[in-house]
């Protein structure tokens, strides 16, 4: 069976810069694919290619085995690919309902005249948020009063409601505290349980590892490989992401600092050390 989304040998160049050099990966329904990589590895570019912001220089995207190409984000959305950006595309000073339906407001009896069916919109926003486990008493509540995690959920619930088959989450936990990040990861698991494919972009292995089924590791525009979770440990993933040798070098370097900063053994020694430091400075 063909994967829901498959990226094959994607190359993207910007002038002389090669942002992506032949990256391939795929994701299935009910699966979380984690795109890992350091800053500048090409995660964002890959996502922008998939969500229609950029067109690949070469390579092909397949959905259900059929080749597809998206000229703009709108077309990608119609194709079922929804992106939840880092800034969430959410307006803090507007209500939950208005955010939920921004750009896709439901018309009612007066729809032809451009009227919004507010009753339906409020009801739907409340219901869809409830499905994700967030009980909104007043859908006219301003989003600014919601926590970072709840805003994530709003963006996710909105994408699901508007028929997303593939949900791309760009650094959803980056701006959140430990507890909130955990909450968001739970919601991602919920989305997976609904049968959507999730592509999670992050450089935080500790957030990615518990939720992901599959990792694609990007390094300097190239794919380091795609691994199933069962085949790799957390440390291995971290090692591949940052580069084993580099990490070892860093560790050695840090060890040296440990020596110089090591705490003196007694008060007497501390006094001597302080005196030495003072005389060195003068």
């Amino acid at each position, binding site marked *: 069976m063909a994967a829901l989304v498959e990226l094959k040998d994607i190359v993207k160049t910007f002038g002389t810069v090669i942002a992506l050099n032949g990256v391939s990966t795929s994701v299935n329904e009910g699966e979380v694919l984690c795109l890992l990589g350091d800053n500048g590895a090409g995660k964002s570019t890959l996502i922008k290619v998939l969500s229609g912001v950029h067109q690949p220089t070469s390579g092909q995207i397949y959905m259900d085995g059929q080749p597809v190409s998206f000229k703009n984000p709108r077309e990608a959305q119609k194709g079922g690919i929804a992106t939840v*950006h880092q800034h969430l595309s959410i307006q803090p000073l507007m209500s939950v309902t208005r955010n939920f339906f*921004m750009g896709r407001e439901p018309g009612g009896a007066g729809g032809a005249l451009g*009227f919004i069916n507010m009753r339906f919109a409020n009801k739907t926003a409340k219901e869809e948020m409830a499905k994700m*486990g967030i009980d909104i008493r007043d859908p006219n509540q301003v989003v600014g009063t919601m926590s970072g995690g709840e805003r994530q959920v709003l963006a996710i619930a909105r994408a699901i409601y508007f028929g997303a088959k593939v949900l791309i989450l760009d650094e959803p936990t980056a701006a959140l505290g430990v507890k909130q990040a955990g909450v968001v990861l739970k919601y991602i698991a919920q989305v997976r349980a609904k049968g959507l494919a999730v592509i999670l972009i992050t450089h935080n292995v500790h957030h990615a590892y518990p939720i992901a089924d599959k990792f694609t590791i990007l390094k300097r525009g190239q794919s380091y490989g795609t691994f199933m979770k069962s085949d790799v440990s957390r440390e291995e993933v971290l090692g591949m992401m940052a580069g084993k040798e580099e990490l070892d070098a860093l560790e050695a370097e840090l060890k040296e600092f440990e020596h110089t900063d090591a705490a003196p053994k007694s008060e007497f020694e501390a006094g001597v050390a302080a005196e030495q430091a003072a005389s060195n400075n003068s």
Partner: protein
Amino acid sequence: MAASQATNTDERIRQVSFLNRLLSRPEFGALAGALIVFILFTIFSWKPDINFPGFLRPRAVMTWLKFSAEIGIIGIGATLLMIAGEFDLSVGSIIAVAGVIALTPIVYFGMAPWLAILLTLGFCLLMGWVNGTIVNWTRLPSFIVTLAFLYIYRGLTLVSIRWLTDGSTRVDVQRLVGQHDISSVNEARAFIQSDWLSRMFAGEIWGTPRLFAWLGELGIMPTSTRNILVDGVRTPVVLPVADGIPVAVAWWIILLILAIILMQRTRFGNWVYGTGGHEESARNMGVPTKRVKVILFMGTALCAGIFACLQAFEFGSVDSLRGNLKEFEAIIVAVIGGTLLTGGYGAVAGAFWGALIYGMLSRGIEIVSWMQSDWFRILLGVGLLLAVMFNTYIRKRATEAK
């Protein structure tokens, strides 16, 4: 499920009292301000020896209502545009251009007034389209683009008025005297106000003079004896002290209702808020933000055109200085009304109260005998500052997380 249990208990919204709810409406500050100004002027102008307090005399009320209405009309346009995150500093200059286009064809080329009005409003839409299109195209801040057009349109007024009138800086219906059997300036003014469309831009709302006369007869409305020309003879007639409700008030209220419906109930209104809140997000969600902006620039210019027609057809004259500083007064009305300067937040209803504050301040200060009207601008400036401080505080309360 554990997660939903947790959200049920600690993610609930706080219980918001009625007062808090009222406080967190964007227009609350302006509403409170309008009430305060109204009460203060009523007290200050109260004279026990007359049975009516000065500020509440029907004639005075009509005057400050008319002032509020005129500034309110351009305030509505400015508010919508500001919610979308843009400014139009060329409003005052558009008023000047519109005034010239409204009167010159009638006075110099014998065009029918209704046609001149349609031409004026059409040209205003064009000027707004130019503003919006250039803002979109250059991606420069609208502050800069419309500042340029503040000068361009003002200059255009002077150039065109001189060219069309052979060197004058003023167009006056007086020139019509002697044509169309018109024998006086008053008749000339009546002539340009007489057709179906121009009637909507001068005088009083249909029916209200008769209503006021009736109230006068009943003794509810105070009356006075005035000399009126009847068949060319000055005849004393007992008339109510106010002629009726000025048409500007009708325009104001109608535009206000339309704008409120637009912003609260339509998709376009949602797009306006979205465009001002975070343009890129709105575009990501499929909102045609550029089109929204062009339409709003056109709307602002249209409001300026209506303002210009109201003044041109009432006074029967325009000059190249008309509309001076009106762009800032429109912005003041919007800001006092609680609209955020950076966009994304605000309410049309706020602009209503803002305009009322403006109108009451500007006229009230002349009614209260011990106040010097020279202080008007100082009061307005202080009022603006207080309003912005108050609104910022309220908004913080409204949106701060928990």
